[in-house]
């Protein structure tokens, strides 16, 4: 009997942070053993015509568990993620209860055992995400927590945020800010603009996000802390982050896939599936976001997967919960809607390397930090010695997005019925095939 822990991916091209080339990939005991032409092993996983990339890394995945197991569990989320090419997802701390203590981090780690991909916990910045006292960040960092965020709420008190930055800076962890000024966003459910005016729905102005970005960049400068912005949605927000980084600030930002694909006008039918947080912005904002992605200037594209039960969306738009089930579809949606397909030219088309980079090695570097010089560890390069976290993508496969056929327990999505091009064929997590020929193995 062949050794199950040794196999070769044959017939594909490899696309990673170092570029693209035709090569087979030999995996042995959890690591990449060799990359090159004509490799062989008793066990062969066919990857003809496919692209092998470093496994996707999601910094922003709502897990549902604990608290909303009807909508999602850690295992169902991980299965959806693996089917979507993710090998690592970072769970948001906005569960019920909030992940804010060593006990809750350990609970999540226990829940994640045996899941179809790596599920890492993040934790809240303040206890209960109530914006009052800091969580025991050092204790949580020692348990492996790297991202801290009061998700969906954000830290409003500038002095508290300053303290969080200062305390976190010494621990080497990342403070993630959800940028939305609550007094400007109050009563809003839609991007403030012509469509919110026409539809008679309270708006959330772009400036509700931008004033927080402005302030927090100043506080990051004051403290020297590493700041990561959650799901930015406006052209001006990204321009500010970009110029701050050019000035040397250690600041990064993520963008949700939904904001790259949809705009406020898509809410015109009052379908609660189109309600997101941050809201779907103007067509100009979307174009600017896609332009940044195409230019390789986005640090991370995230799923912002948000599981909901059906009833959370069977209510009026303003009462509906924001967010959609995204983990399984994010990559395929990006490939279909943003990259240049067979179908001919497309305005603002994103290169494959830019899209995969923003879904894989760029978020990985935010999650893991800069690799210390002289170590063998590398993120985002498929070479001998690298951890075998790989996604094998068939770029030509066409299929229809059917939420009911997804692995997530949550099926709310505005993308149901879309024609997709590009599909994950195999997902290898730590050298183990978790998805084989499009079928989850767990």
């Amino acid at each position, binding site marked *: 009997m062949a050794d199950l822990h040794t196999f070769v991916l044959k017939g594909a091209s490899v696309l990673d942070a170092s570029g693209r080339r035709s090569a087979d990939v030999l995996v042995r005991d959890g690591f990449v053993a060799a990359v090159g032409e004509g490799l062989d092993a008793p066990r062969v996983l066919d990857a003809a015509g496919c692209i092998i990339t470093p496994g996707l890394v999601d910094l922003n995945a709502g897990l549902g568990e604990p608290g909303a197991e009807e909508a999602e569990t850690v295992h169902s989320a991980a299965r959806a993620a693996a089917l979507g090419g993710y090998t690592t997802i970072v769970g948001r701390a906005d569960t019920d209860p909030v992940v804010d203590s060593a006990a809750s981090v350990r609970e999540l780690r226990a829940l994640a055992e045996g899941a179809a991909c790596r599920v890492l916990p993040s934790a809240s910045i303040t206890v209960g995400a109530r914006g009052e006292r800091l969580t025991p960040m050092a204790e949580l960092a020692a348990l492996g927590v790297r991202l801290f965020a009061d998700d969906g709420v954000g830290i409003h008190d500038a002095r508290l945020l300053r303290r969080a930055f200062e305390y976190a800076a010494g621990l080497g962890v990342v403070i993630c800010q959800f940028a939305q000024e609550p007094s400007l966003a109050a009563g809003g459910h839609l991007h403030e603009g012509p469509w919110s005016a*026409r539809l008679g729905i309270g708006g959330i102005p772009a400036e509700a996000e931008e004033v927080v970005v402005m302030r927090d960049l100043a506080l990051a400068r004051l403290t020297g802390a590493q700041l990561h912005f959650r799901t930015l949605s406006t052209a001006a927000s990204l321009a500010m982050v970009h110029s701050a980084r050019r000035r040397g600030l250690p600041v990064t930002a993520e963008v949700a896939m939904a904001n790259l694909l949809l705009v406020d006008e898509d809410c015109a039918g009052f379908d609660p599936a189109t309600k997101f947080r941050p809201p779907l912005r103007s067509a100009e904002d979307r174009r600017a976001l896609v332009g940044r992605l195409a230019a390789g200037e986005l640090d991370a594209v995230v799923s912002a997967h948000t599981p909901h039960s059906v*009833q959370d969306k069977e*209510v009026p738009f303003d009462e509906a919960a924001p967010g959609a089930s995204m983990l399984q579809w994010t990559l395929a949606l990006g490939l279909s809607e943003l990259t240049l397909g067979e179908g001919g030219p497309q305005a603002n088309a994103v290169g494959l390397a830019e899209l995969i980079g923003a879904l894989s090695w760029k978020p990985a570097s935010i999650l893991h930090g800069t690799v210390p010089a002289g170590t063998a560890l590398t993120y985002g390069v498929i070479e001998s010695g690298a951890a075998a976290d790989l996604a094998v993508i068939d770029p030509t496969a066409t299929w229809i997005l059917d939420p009911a056929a997804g692995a997530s327990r949550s099926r709310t999505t505005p993308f149901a019925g879309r024609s997709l091009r590009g599909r994950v064929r195999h997902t290898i997590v730590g050298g183990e095939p978790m998805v084989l020929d499009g079928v989850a193995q767990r």
Partner: protein
Amino acid sequence: MKHLLGVIGQPRAMLEELLQLSDSFAEVNARAIPKVPALRGRTVATLFFEDSTRTRLSFETAAKRLSADTLSFSVSSSSVKKGETLRDTALTLQAMRIDAIVVRHASSGAPWQLARWLDCSVINAGDGWHEHPTQALLDCYTLRRHFGSLDGLRIAIVGDIKHSRVARSDVWAFTALGAEVTLVAPRTLLPPSLEGWPVQVSEDLDRVLGSSDVVYLLRMQRERQHEALVPSLREYTARFGLTRDRAERLADRAVVLHPGPMNRGVEIAPEVADLDRCLVLDQVANGVTVRMAVLYKLLAGSAADPHDAVGDEAWGPIRSGGSDG
């Protein structure tokens, strides 16, 4: 036409058809016994998630004058808070085999969602800040009766446009019928964007007043001063209220409209509300007429002529076809 959800973007022909149909029912309403069997055997339910006795009564009166059966559902906000979704409520009504649902909801868009879930006709009786199509129709009908036509009428809509479903529907209905609309309000009470709206905007009522054929006053809610949208009701009245002084500067033929209920002393001086040129009670009477036309249009057979149906005992229900409104 299966539903009446909104008037934004509706063609002039559709509005004119409903206004012409209203004339037939105005004749019915003038009779000693204002009742015809046009919708006998049909059931119309009013589903109000937000209190509005006037609008509900107007719809129920309209339905009864067409001999339809009426049902009245009051959905208290507490039962929604207990977890019943909008869809649950809709399907409950569906199970009772109702022909039309007249819905009022505090959330913009709720009637559009109901129309997706239900087989029966849905009539929007006001959704959030979004639309109030029968109010727009009755306003158009009132002006048409008074002036003969809306073509070329200069209409000033004054007050809290931002939060007003009446204003949103009226702007599009008035302009579709040929009127020119000027919105008069401080910036805080205007929508965040007027891109694509066929209107002019002014912050100065006194400049607009003399050249207006119609001054349409919106209800000014007291809460707005607590949201810092206006400093005080006193200042609002001083800038945007139709005071006695301002009423004297109206053009001779100018009329005043208000969707009710009026805040006498805030947006309109009590003496002005009682002037002949204030058509508020005409609006109420015409509301019943127009709603009869809407119910008839949606529920009666599309081929039937209302003049035949009126008073014709033998006229029976025919399922209306057509596409969504």
